[in-house]
């Protein structure tokens, strides 16, 4: 069996989620009731039997480190391989690298030492359930230099404007990488490449003073090298703004979208917490809602997501909202189209109503 190693490159992911990314990077934003965004990519990797994963973190990585620890939740606290979170702490005065090449260059030992022959490089904003072994099979079969992963999006949304798009010829080869807003071939910020070739490209990029590995090292060589496209056909959400976060969170209340993302044979792992089962009081009324453990619900909740340990008082009404860990919604408070970050308290009787297309976001630990 071929071995694959993984790199999760957060270096040029912008933290565009307003209050949700004031204190944390996008990869660490809570999602789907009990996860963080990055859990999905890491779980995809471990479910594909990838046993060595490096995370290139640049900024606001503190909560990411707290969350990932040594990777125990993903069975990645290993002697061989495992999970490596690599914040920038480089002190080599002779280092000439720039941009994300700094990461590739300063962490070259990860690439050098891995026993894997292939490397999957991915970001954290594409929420999906993909088996990278299928991508590898396609990659080997086509004999490509690089295989990039894309998906066809029928119903393009504003978040896809920020994504790269692909023009693909009949043979499956990538003819162009661009930002055409009409194109539905959304590049998922994921590619697979042979380890030795990756190493060669990194050296080339540094020698030429490049600052963005994908754009300069791969896209920039489009005429010379054989880039193949692999079409992923499962559930897909691209999350790079509050609006896309909100819309794609609520999409999970649709049962079939949910089941496409959470599959029994390729589960999503996350850090273990010890919360009691959620308690629904006699006075509660909950419908069409995802609820994590540790909640105590006395009020009315509909079309919402409650993260772990949320308390909802009697007479409180929550609609179309996302309530993160340990928030307290006191009696008779009313929330509609709201995202509450962790540890917020909404005093009794308060009403917060956002717009359905633009939720009202409350930063963490606020009391209102």
């Amino acid at each position, binding site marked *: 069996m071929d071995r694959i190693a993984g790199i999760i490159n957060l270096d040029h992911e912008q933290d565009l989620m307003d209050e949700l990314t004031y204190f944390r990077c996008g990869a660490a934003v809570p999602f*789907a*009731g*009990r996860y963080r965004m990055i859990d999905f990519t890491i779980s995809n990797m471990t479910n594909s039997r990838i046993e060595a994963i490096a995370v290139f973190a640049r900024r606001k990585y503190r909560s990411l480190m707290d969350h990932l620890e040594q990777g125990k939740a993903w069975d990645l606290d290993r002697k061989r391989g495992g999970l490596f979170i690599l914040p920038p702490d480089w002190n080599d005065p002779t280092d000439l690298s720039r941009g994300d090449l700094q990461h590739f260059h300063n962490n070259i030992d990860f690439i050098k030492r891995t026993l894997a022959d292939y490397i999957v490089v991915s970001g954290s904003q594409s929420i999906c359930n993909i088996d990278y072994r299928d991508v590898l099979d396609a990659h080997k079969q086509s004999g490509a230099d690089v295989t990039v992963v894309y998906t066809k999006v029928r119903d393009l949304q504003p978040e896809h404007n920020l994504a790269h798009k692909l023009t693909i010829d009949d043979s499956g080869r990538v003819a162009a990488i661009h930002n055409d807003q009409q194109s539905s071939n959304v590049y998922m910020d994921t590619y697979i490449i042979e380890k030795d070739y990756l190493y060669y490209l990194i050296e080339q990029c540094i020698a030429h003073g490049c600052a963005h590995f994908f754009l300069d090292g791969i896209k920039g060589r489009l005429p010379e090298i054989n880039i193949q496209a692999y079409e992923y056909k499962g559930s897909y959400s691209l999350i790079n703004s509050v609006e896309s976060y909100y819309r794609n969170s609520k999409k999970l*209340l649709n*049962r079939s979208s*949910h089941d496409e993302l*959470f599959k029994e044979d390729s*589960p*999503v*792992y*996350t850090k*273990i917490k*010890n*919360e*009691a*089962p*959620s*308690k*629904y*009081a*006699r006075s*509660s*009324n*909950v*419908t*069409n*809602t*995802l*609820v*994590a*453990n*540790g909640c*105590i619900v006395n009020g009315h909740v509909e079309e919402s*997501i*409650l993260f772990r340990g949320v308390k909802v008082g009697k007479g409180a009404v929550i609609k179309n909202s996302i309530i993160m860990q340990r928030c307290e919604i006191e009696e008779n408070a009313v929330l509609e189209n709201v995202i509450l970050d962790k540890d917020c308290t909404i005093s009794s009787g308060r009403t917060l109503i956002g717009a359905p297309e633009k939720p009202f976001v409350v930063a963490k630990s606020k009391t209102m």
Partner: protein
Amino acid sequence: MKTKECVAMLLAGGQGTRLKSLTKKIAKPAVYFGGKYRIIDFPLSNCSNSGIDTVGVLTQYEPLILNNYIGIGSSWDLDRNYGGVSVLPPYMQSEGGGWYTGTANAIYRNIEFLDRYEPEHVLILSGDHIYKMDYSSMLEEHIEQDADSTISVIPVSWDEASRFGIMNTDDDGRIIEFDEKPDFPLSNLASMGVYIFKWEVLKRYLLEDEEKDNSSHDFGKDIIPTMLQDGKHLHAYKFEGYWKDVGTVDSLWEANMDLLKEDPELNLSDNKWRIYSKNPNQPAQYIAPCATVRNALINEGCRIYGSIDTSVIFYGVHVEDSAVIKDSVIMPNVKIGKNVKIHRAIIAEGSNIEDNSVIGDPNPDSQITLVAEEGSVMASSYATIIK
């Protein structure tokens, strides 16, 4: 090597036959409770929260699931580099070997394990009870009283007292007499099956007891009475709080229902005294638009399309629409079909309840129906066929 002040020994060998088919393939301490837990989570979490970091778990009957569940104790923060959890099955020695013959014999056979830590005190626990208890304050009292043994007791109602081992004490809490299930109890202080001994003293009694042919090698029947006879200092430590033996189907059901009371005596959400358990890694629970949920505990991985009232639902349970579950306990990964009616029942792990099934008796005086994995249905005329 460092010595340990107090080492806990958890007796987890019991079969729990009164739990019927729930314990056909698992030892009683592995039985499920409270939507998420197994019984053994309670004593293990108590140890962890009490700062007791060395625990021997004595297994015997069907230990596979228990072994696997305990692992090295990381779920309870008991995976320590020195100490931690050790599972202690009976084993063969060059002079032979055999099964543990009684609770005292089980400890006797592990004297070597205990001596390794040179403990001053040994805490003996059983894996049969649901309670939250700070063993460290019991240990403090034990040390303060300079007792040879301290036995934790709980006041029970007088009319129930004759079902328990009753401690008669003097005003200082010194135990004068131990009555096993007395017809005319002189006190309502029941033994909780939680003992602390000076290890040096206990060891001597274990060695002596082992020599006696007529001994059943049991703490309650042999060791404690002999110590009392010998005038040893036995002290009663009064525990206050929730404590429940879940040895029967009815009491297991009752203990689950206790959690649904307005202000339950047993608080599972106390951050200062967490009950740890192994995590099944399931997505958030989903309450569908057509579901109604009232007075329920529900765990992750559930999908509720039907109606839940006054019930405890473990992880991974799917309840289809128009199903009605009332006053019941649904164990992990049960699938409940459309239009099913369940009243006053315990449904065992992994059961698959077909559409339109009717289970259990809504009559509040009826016995609790147990539906176990392999399709056996007990004690209810309302029970129907399960695949």
